[in-house]
């Protein structure tokens, strides 16, 4: 994969996180460069999801520093992370189940819509113009993800694979700089995985997003990503381009157990 620049978008330095004495992440450092697809892999419980939660401010690490777009931060709230261009999907799909596909994706535009209560209540003039403008953006995303047919369906009624797609759509609608994807292909069949891979690559190439993704399917990871971070028990055990990581004996141990 190409397209990555040398500019560091996100720099994680010596981050440690624990919950009441239980260590989730221990002294992990890595960086994400603008325009790359960065994979984070590791066995279950390695701290991958916790790492994403630290990046978008949902958890606050006890130690370490995070520098995003050149600014180091002490504490950040999740909604602030969103305002600074970090979008996120979840392992167990965190959609708004009572709302339609279209409305879910439209919520991703909330931050970019400015009209206040007064115009909203009238739903004419500027508010309507704004609504139409953002509707157009969302329709493009819906086309892109090939989910036109479920535009009006409440997402709670959709099968898992489609929900994952809608969730990606909501994240794309935010037009983030950094897109965090937590197991975007879990539980999908081969065809669905191919579709999803295509969407991720296109998000990077066409929309210029930087992607960090957690994925268990090693084949997909090696195909998609520019660099791979490997975690085990909350520690970094490898961090390099896919071919090097694949051959690293520590990684093979972690995945197959020592003495394979």
């Amino acid at each position: 994969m190409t397209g990555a620049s040398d500019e560091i978008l996100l720099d994680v330095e010596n981050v440690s996180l624990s919950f009441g004495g239980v260590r989730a992440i221990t002294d992990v450092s890595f960086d994400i460069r603008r325009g790359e697809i960065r994979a984070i892999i590791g066995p279950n419980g390695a701290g991958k999801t916790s790492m994403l939660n630290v990046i978008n401010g949902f958890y606050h690490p006890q130690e370490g520093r995070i520098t995003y777009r050149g600014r180091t931060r002490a504490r950040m709230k999740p909604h602030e992370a969103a305002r600074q261009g970090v979008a996120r999907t979840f392992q167990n799909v965190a959609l708004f189940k009572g709302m339609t596909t279209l409305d879910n994706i439209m919520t991703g535009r909330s931050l970019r819509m400015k009209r206040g209560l007064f115009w909203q209540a009238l739903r004419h003039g500027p508010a309507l113009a704004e609504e139409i403008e953002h509707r157009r953006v969302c329709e493009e995303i819906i086309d892109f993800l090939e989910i036109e047919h479920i535009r009006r369906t409440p997402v709670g009624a959709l099968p898992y694979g489609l929900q994952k797609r809608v969730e990606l759509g909501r994240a794309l609608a935010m037009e983030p700089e950094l897109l965090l994807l937590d197991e975007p292909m879990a539980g999908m069949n081969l065809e669905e995985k191919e579709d999803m891979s295509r969407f991720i690559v296109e998000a990077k190439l066409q929309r210029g997003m930087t992607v960090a993704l957690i994925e268990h399917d090693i084949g997909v990871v090696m195909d998609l990503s520019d660099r791979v971070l490997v975690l085990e028990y909350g520690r970094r055990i490898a961090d390099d381009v896919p071919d090097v990581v694949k051959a690293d004996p520590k990684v093979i141990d972690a995945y197959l157990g020592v003495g394979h």
Partner: protein
Amino acid sequence: MFYREAGQYKTTYAADMAIFPIRQDRWGLALILFVAFVVIPTFGGPFLLNTMMIPFLVLSLAAIGLNLLTGYTGLLSLGTGAFMGVGAYACYKLATWFPQVNILVWIVASGFVSAAVGVLFGLPSLRIKGFYLAVATLAAQFFLQWGFARAPWLVNYNDSGAIEVPRATLFGVPVTGPSATPVTRYLVVLTLVSIMAWLASNIVHGRIGRIWMAVRDMDIAAQLIGIRLLNAKLLAFAVSSFTVGVAGALMVFLWLGAAEPEAFNINLSFEILFIIIIGGLGSIVGAFFGATIMHLMPIALRALPAMIGLPIEAARVEQLTFMITGILIIVVLIAEPHGLARLWQTAKQKLRVWPFPY
């Protein structure tokens, strides 16, 4: 047969985003408005207007207000009655301080007072949710109701301790007080309720409504797409309490004509809550459905058996109303947790493709 959208193509997003995208729905709405604004005031007697239509509209408006908070934002409130009271007392104070200003101005302005109080009691909603928040709203209910009874200042130290609605006119026609005719009061209530229902419907169909529903469906995910939970919740409290407060002012000024603190007790809160449960959580039109059932049931229980010669005494009617309300709630929740509004949607969907199942 007639309910078909075939041939109605939408060529713009604006047309597709309309609140009533199907032509037959717009005709239906026009017909309802025609009946409400022309037919009923022309042919309706005082019983229809005073006992049925005005209370129905006021309760619907209060239910719309609560629905914004509970149905759309997912914050259960048991303090609606007290917030209606805030609106009513605020309107009374304002109207007696400045009698020269038109009463309609004060009815709307009282909504702002209620909104401010609502925001105050909504502040805990950042830290607590679900059932805990419901108990916090009970604090509002009992505290405010106590306040109404303990502050004679609220009713200008009058002897009765109740709000006594002063006479006020609009273009020379009395709209409040004993000399206002039922038709005038009905038209004023109808106009205000229609406008506010339209505004509420616009809000829930736009960005703010989506934010509220996002907070309701999954607050964590809402935060992660950049929504500030406290702002969203407080806005819901404010808009909801505003609507409820106006409903309270209308209730006293254009329906009851006088009100004691007891009028805003917890049973009123429950009644409004039941209207939205039965009518449909998260639906503006559901508030009207629910209010129809909750308000007409006791009237029907009084009138229908009397018609066939088996009158039921007043106490029995009340007991039966309680029982039936309870049963209705459970039946509705089992049959369709989204209430009558969802059944109506489903029925329309069926009609759209009738006689085919899909």
